[in-house]
């Protein structure tokens, strides 16, 4: 039976089912409800784990690094500044091939300070070697966490996974979710059996340094593994469907793309708003669809071009920006099409920074203007009064 849970509670209940042995976190809005719920579950004995309240996110990531290297399944969660502070450790965790799973409750980055949602934080970790999966709603966020452990601990992969969910829009919203049955979860995700871990029984050296004649290979093999992880993510999603009877969790997901001449491409909770718009437009007979990107890393370039084959115009919406360069996701989508004889027109739209609302009208304007020719707005809905004119 479905439960009406706050997103954070739903995540915490899912993590409980995943049975991490060591959890470490530092409080930061809007991640707090997740770790508060987990603390309560641990305090009540519903979750048998060491819950380490640390003095910074840098230490939270380092505690799970140490615990993972000692053979324990681990979990941490953060957002925004916390993720930026962790960044050094995130690179290290991936480089050491530790299957840590973490949640990023996506939030803007300072300055100006903003506790509200966008995805600039997790985008900064895109080159770190972590697998990054983006959730559309609470249910998918739960499902992706369960899959995340399976993917991370797969012996072909052994890389960390970050599940990204929009702060407040998912973390603080009450939605009905289907809770996991313990028996099914144990079948889908058995206890973690590490390949190598710190023990005097087999005194291994972790974290050597590499001379220039070896460093490139160490980085290449992570890149190659991330490429190969696409297959594992797909396999895991299929297996998930078999066990739990619901879908999602593939690299990408399409919505009314078959006969579409126009497509939105986006990640995260904005997909819900886009679906409403597409439903409305479809009723009017307009051929518009959506490609939801679930896996940002590994980047599913081939899957994107296949799904968008024959579509004339593509609007890439993203809640992030590379200052001094522009949209990030849009460039990667464009790159996927590079070298093809016939390429669609692809425009990028930066929306929803720092929690700015993305009303249906704005989304429809993007569609109307771009569909009819122009519409490379880049930054959508700028307030020119604040800027002192155009």
């Amino acid at each position, binding site marked *: 039976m479905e439960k009406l849970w706050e997103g954070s509670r739903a995540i915490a209940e899912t993590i409980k089912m995943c049975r991490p*042995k*060591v959890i*470490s976190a530092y409080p930061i809005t809007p991640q707090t409800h997740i770790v508060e719920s987990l603390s309560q579950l641990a305090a009540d004995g519903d979750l*048998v*784990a*060491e819950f*380490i*309240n*640390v*003095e*910074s996110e*840098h*230490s*939270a*990531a*380092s*505690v*799970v*690094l*140490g*615990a*993972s*290297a*000692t*053979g*324990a399944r*681990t979990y941490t969660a953060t957002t925004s500044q916390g993720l930026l502070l962790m960044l*050094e*450790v995130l690179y*290290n965790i991936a480089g*050491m091939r530790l299957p840590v799973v973490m949640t990023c409750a996506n939030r803007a980055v300072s300055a100006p300070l903003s506790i509200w949602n966008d995805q600039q934080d997790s985008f900064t970790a895109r080159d770190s070697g972590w697998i990054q999966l983006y959730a559309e709603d609470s249910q998918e966020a739960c499902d992706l966490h369960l899959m995340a452990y399976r993917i991370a601990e797969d012996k072909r992969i052994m890389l960390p996974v970050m599940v990204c969910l929009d702060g407040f829009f998912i973390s603080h919203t009450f939605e009905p979710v289907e809770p996991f049955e313990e028996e099914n979860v144990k079948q889908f995700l058995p206890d973690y059996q590490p390949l190598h871990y*710190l*023990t*005097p*029984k*087999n*005194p*291994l*050296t*972790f*974290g*050597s*340094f*590499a*001379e220039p004649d*070896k460093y490139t290979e160490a980085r290449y093999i992570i890149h190659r593994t991330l490429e190969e992880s696409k297959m594992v993510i797909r396999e895991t999603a299929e297996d998930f469907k078999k066990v739990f009877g619901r879908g999602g969790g593939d690299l990408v997901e399409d919505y009314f793309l078959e006969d579409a001449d126009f497509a939105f491409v986006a990640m995260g909770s904005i997909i819900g708003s886009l679906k409403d718009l597409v439903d409305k437009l479809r009723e009017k007979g307009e051929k518009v669809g959506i490609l939801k990107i679930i896996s940002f890393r590994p980047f599913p370039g081939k899957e994107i071009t296949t799904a968008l084959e024959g579509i004339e115009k593509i609007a890439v919406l993203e809640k992030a920006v590379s200052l001094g360069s522009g949209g990030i996701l849009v460039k990667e989508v464009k790159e996927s099409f590079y070298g093809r004889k016939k390429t669609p027109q692809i425009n990028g739209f930066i929306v929803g920074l720092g929690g700015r609302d993305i009303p249906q009208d704005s989304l429809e304007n993007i569609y109307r203007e771009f569909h009819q020719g122009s519409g490379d707005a880049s930054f959508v809905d700028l307030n020119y009064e604040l800027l002192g004119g155009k």
Partner: protein
Amino acid sequence: MKKNLLAPGHSACAGCGESLAIRLVLNAAGENIIVANATGCSEIFTSNYPLSAWEVPWIHSLFENTAAVASGIEAALKVSGRKSEAKVIAQGGDGGMADIGLQALSGMWERWHDVLSVCYDNEGYMNTGIQRSGLTPLDTKTTTTPPGKFSWGNYRPKKNLPLIAAAHGIPYVAVTTVAYPRDIEEKVQKAIKIEGPKYIQIYSPCPLGWRSEPSQTIEIARLAVETGIYPVYEMINGKITSAKKFSKLKPVEEFLKLQGRFSHLFTKEGGDEEIKKIQKIADDNINQFDMILKDGEELQKE
């Protein structure tokens, strides 16, 4: 002969105090340990992939997070019912422990992890080319505190990390030096048996950084204690319980003159006054740690 848990063949410099101290610590702690190591000389001279000098399970992650990594190791052992398998040691140089890693170290102490933290104090960032750290002493010449027309070198005395450790209320804090191998052994063996956080600081001369003769590492380390510059002591539950004592302390010049890092104090005009300041630091230590033997007291064995 017992196996050395830090294998020979690593690439530390001749006369390196740190490599000697690490070997003594590991051998005293025994095989059933897991070591988390900060970035720095000790990590570099032991872990050039695919070589390793470590005969015990060892992990290096980053510079400032060693104590947090060790916390995670200890937590994982505890939750998996493997506590009896290994004791955990978090170690690094003074940069990694006293400066950039101090926050993580403080967190580990305050959370009461059963971890022995060891700081190999060579009084500066030696791995990066002899820059000053928070544990660099007064008037030291380093590459970032060079003496000059307006400078005598490092302008502040060193930070008192053992006292900071003790302020956390941890059960055991000790200071020792590579000049006293038996003292290191005893303190490590004592510390590792105590449940909870422990801190040992080991004076580890660096011939390269201190511009001293590799053959004089032990002599310099001994003189540091014998002049009152670097008192060797123990604090149990926050109270000083023992300190190395002498019938007579030596003047600081005997210690300073063996090291190029203090040579400007003997060549530059006004150096006498600076040496007086250093003598004052030593005198204060001698008083604080009651380092002069009284009638009837016996000299402790080394």
